[in-house]
């Protein structure tokens, strides 16, 4: 059973989507480790190490995502999580910005996939499955 770490990064308390993501991924048969809201980068990384997770799914709703996510990939690598798949989604920047640009910014930070606002978790289950199947084909450094 594949393990996915989920949580809401930074000073962000938006809990509803997080609870739904936990519920949905669990019913899909994944082992979900939820670090909850107000999670630090370390919370994500420690949970991923402990649970031997293949994927970290970061939510950021409140707009500070850009500040909060910087350096996560580097810290993962330092912690030896050199194959971990990183997703980010929610409302990850402040305001309505051109998504193409936003995506570039987060890809440059080392995320594997970046999702625009209103992407329901149900609609990305296929991608998650596929990416997990291909886990390990890439190392990130």
């Amino acid at each position: 059973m594949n393990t996915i770490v989920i949580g809401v990064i930074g000073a962000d308390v938006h809990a509803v989507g997080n609870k739904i993501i936990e519920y949905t991924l669990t019913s899909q048969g994944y082992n979900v480790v939820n670090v909850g809201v107000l999670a630090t980068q370390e919370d994500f990384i420690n949970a991923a190490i402990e649970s031997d997770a293949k994927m970290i799914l970061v939510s950021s709703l409140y707009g500070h995502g850009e500040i909060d996510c910087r350096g996560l990939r580097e810290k993962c690598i330092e912690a030896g999580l050199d194959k971990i798949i990183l997703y980010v989604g929610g409302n990850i920047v402040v305001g309505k910005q051109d998504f193409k640009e936003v995506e570039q910014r987060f890809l440059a930070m080392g995320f594997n996939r970046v999702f625009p606002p209103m992407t329901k978790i149900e609609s990305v289950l296929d991608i998650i499955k596929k990416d997990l199947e291909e886990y390990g084909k890439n190392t990130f450094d």
Partner: protein
Amino acid sequence: MKLNNKKLSMDEFLKIRKEILSSYITGSDPLLDLDQAVEYLKNVPNHKNMAYVLNKAGQEGRTLVQPRAGTPILKEHIELMKYLEQAGADLLPTTIDSYTRQNRYKEAEDGIKESERLNRALLNGFPAVNYGVENCRKVYEAINVPIQARHGTPDARLLAEIIHAAGWTSNEGGGISYNIPYAKNISLVDSIKYWQYCDRLVGYYQERGITLNREPFGPLTGTLVPPSISHTIAIVEAILAATQGVKSITVGYGQCGNVTQDIAALKTLKIKTEEYLHRFGFKDVDVTTVFHQWMGGFPNNEAEAMGLISMSATVAALGKATKMITKTPYESIGIPTKEANERGIKASKFVASLLKDQQFPHSEELFREMHQIEIEIDSLMDNIIKAGKGDIASGIIEAFKSGIIDVPFAPSKYNLGKILPARDNQGYIRILEFGNLGFNDEIKEFHKSRIQERVDYEKRTFSFDLTVDDIYAVSMGSLIGRKQNK
């Protein structure tokens, strides 16, 4: 120190104050001298005083319009405020950024710098503590309507000091409503104490003839919160505030979506708050109401969002809320531009103005729902008072601990998190799973039977699925997350 609902003595207040003011550099501003602040506040004209303006609107039966807005760069924030006033906002907000809410002033400082460097907002609000009294006064002085801080800060003591001394005549929040939906690890005992202080500060000014307004945050998590639960918390916070000497309280409620339930909620909110304030001996508090336009997930399409906003405004106006907090067509996307914010204001204000001479007619259905909300509140309040052995402050702590009161989807670990709400067949919010909620059996039976009716109608089962479908429903254009909609 044990928590109880007692007015802070002047000594206690001043002692805490000293600590608070020394907790961050902007706290040492001489403008925070209480005598100076009193002097400044005495010069606030009526039309810029939230307590005065709301009280007047309440008496005239009008519904005022207030947006949410805040941006990190001072100059731009002032422009924003002026723009929104121009757009028709009767009352102005200043939404505070999320680092400030967690008292992370250092990160807020970085956010200001980064925002200035990149010339785009990297904070989701205005970091008022970092800016200090003088800058906050610049905001106050630039506008001609009352201004209020809106945030979500469990420990807002320094923030409260700064904004009030700057002429901001209202502060949103409360020890429960700004903890349970906004924090994970902060103890309720602490946050209530912090807010007793904020209320005491308002009481201090009140004793010197300056009436400031306080507003418990009604919608809580904004997600399928049954009216009796949010009302009960609003009532408790109103009592806590009144105990510290607050005389102008605006209790709030977030739209649930069934029009009759919403109007019943608005009416009972005022009735029951006044009733309990009286019972607790507070007979000279002005109670007004605030209706929050739909607080859950919004539709993506901007025209649909405008539809939702205006429909919300219709309910606020017919229900005679004293003010409504407006949303914007960008709600589902992100912090709005000032133009998007203007559109929400203009549409809402137009509807409020159009309907100002009308009311939702009295009907059996309305009275039935009002009665239902009232007995639920009484059941919860009885249990809370009992749990605190008469002390409402320790009562609410005990009630949260045991789940007598429980807020759906709250992140706080001080909330039991066992109840699950779901809509009934007409879209009224009811409860599916009660946990330890302080409802008597009759009330529980009522909720179950109403949801059962829906479950039968949709030929599905009683489960969390109902809740999940209902959470998504509005953003997808339905109120009820019907099974066949999927």
